[in-house]
């Protein structure tokens, strides 16, 4: 049973068309939720960590939010260079370091 589910699997946007990616989790005792960006042929690159419900973090056109059951990655006025796979991962209770990853959302932004 998947503990971390990301949706949609793929999203195609026009440049400037804002949208959101979802990451839902079924684990209890969440210690942290992480967002990563992965470009083709490269390793994941860290974006955000969220630790408690209600927390929000922003970076350029990206804003991540966290509730008790899910996280959203909001993309405002995306550009083609935002095209990538976005990965969500959770840090489970009882562990300081073992992340459980979702399968990712492939975002394509067309000019």
């Amino acid at each position: 049973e998947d503990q971390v589910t990301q949706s949609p699997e793929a999203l195609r946007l026009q440049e400037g068309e804002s949208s959101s990616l979802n990451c839902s989790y079924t684990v209890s005792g969440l210690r942290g939720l992480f967002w990563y960006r992965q470009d083709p042929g490269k390793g994941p690159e860290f974006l955000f960590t969220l630790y408690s419900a209600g927390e929000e973090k922003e970076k350029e056109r990206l804003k991540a939010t966290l509730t008790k059951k899910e996280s959203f990655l909001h993309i405002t006025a995306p550009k083609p260079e935002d095209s990538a796979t976005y990965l969500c991962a959770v840090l489970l209770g009882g562990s300081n370091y073992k992340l459980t990853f979702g399968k990712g959302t492939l975002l394509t932004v067309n000019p």
Partner: protein
Amino acid sequence: NAGVTQTPKFRILKIGQSMTLQCAQDMNHNYMYWYRQDPGMGLKLIYYSVGAGITDKGEVPNGYNVSRSTTEDFPLRLELAAPSQTSVYFCASSDFRGYNEQFFGPGTRLTVL
């Protein structure tokens, strides 16, 4: 700082061959990890280490071995390669707080034929 480096970038193995994937980090991180990533799947933890001389199994350890003799290096050994080990392998590291972000290497693409 080079961050996390991995060698080789690509490798093709025949069934039954063995090899070692190299990983090094220059950030003095205590924690190091090995993941595999298959198409359409999330990253799966193979092994991890919380410091030199200390390693433990992750989610999918079968067919792999690791050692950690120094803080900097964390090699992954594949014994008797099988087609099921065809994947992209990522090494990562994080600092002593662990729950902070993990820094990933560029990956090794391995094909077993």
